[in-house]
């Protein structure tokens, strides 16, 4: 766990998000990102959302384009976590959303693992405080349970999202605003070279994760 470097940086991220378009999960009819690199499992998740919440009004996603403030966030996070990741890594995807208070426990609000391929980790960046009012995070269960609560806005958490059970706990009063950055351990540091995919998870295969596109199909590793 670590914190963003300053209140002013948190405010800049708020300002940036506040100017963006937003969308609900159901707004993405197939893959409006027009990106064939990131994996999206739309239908199954949409069906679960509909069955659990009846609608997807509980969460609103920001449409993140590539932007200097996100690059600055990536750079800060990379520098902060590199010793914990213990290898170079690729920034795979960045998402941001608002979740409403008092929503029924479903999906991210129930214990789950993310089911990403081996080698992935996740960083959650909370732009609102982690507390009863805004909601908080629980990672692990039983003796390994860590409740991340009573932390200021700007708190960041690096964790093994597909190995460790975790859940978000909704707030009781306020909207919670979070940015999620998915990373993959690689042999060289790689930057996110596409817009944030609001419902994307990880690269759809190793080829798309590691190889530069070439029309003749040559294997040219990204650097």
């Amino acid at each position, binding site marked *: 766990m670590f914190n963003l470097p300053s209140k002013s940086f948190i405010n800049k991220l708020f300002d940036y998000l506040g100017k963006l378009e937003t969308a609900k999960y159901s707004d993405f009819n197939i893959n409006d990102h027009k990106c064939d690199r990131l994996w999206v*499992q739309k239908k199954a998740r949409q069906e679960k959302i509909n069955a659990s919440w009846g609608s997807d009004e509980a969460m609103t996603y920001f449409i993140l384009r590539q932007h200097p403030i996100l690059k600055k966030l990536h750079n800060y996070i990379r520098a902060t976590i590199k010793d914990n990741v213990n290898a170079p890594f690729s920034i795979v995807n960045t998402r941001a959303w608002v979740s409403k208070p008092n929503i029924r426990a479903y999906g991210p609000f129930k214990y789950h693992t993310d089911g990403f391929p*081996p*080698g992935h980790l996740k960083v959650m960046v909370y732009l609102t405080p982690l507390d009863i009012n805004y909601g908080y995070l629980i990672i692990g269960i039983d003796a390994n349970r860590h409740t991340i609560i009573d932390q200021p806005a700007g708190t960041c958490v690096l964790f*093994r999202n597909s190995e460790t059970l975790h859940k978000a706990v909704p707030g009781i009063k306020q909207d919670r605003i979070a940015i999620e950055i998915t990373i993959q351990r690689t042999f060289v540091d790689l930057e996110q070279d596409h817009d944030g995919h609001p419902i994307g998870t990880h690269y759809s295969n*190793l*080829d798309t994760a590691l190889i530069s596109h070439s029309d003749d199909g040559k294997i040219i*590793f*990204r*650097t």
Partner: protein
Amino acid sequence: MKKDSTLKVGDLNFYNALDARFSSESKVQIVQELENLIEKERAVPKIEYETYYDANSEELVDKFFPFFEKHTELINQFYPPPH
């Protein structure tokens, strides 16, 4: 092992970007093992982007997770797992 005699032109930028602490033999091993992995993965029929909406994760896990796993195992030979 000389890097110039064993690596393709397209690999050299990657070779040069690898950890400077690695020996040239290790770098060549990494490049070649990754190339082999990608070639094997490319032989697997891809899940077409147009079908993502209906696709299920079991197909993805079966087809492509083993390659991510091999990639991670190779990384773990050179870097300790994250803590």
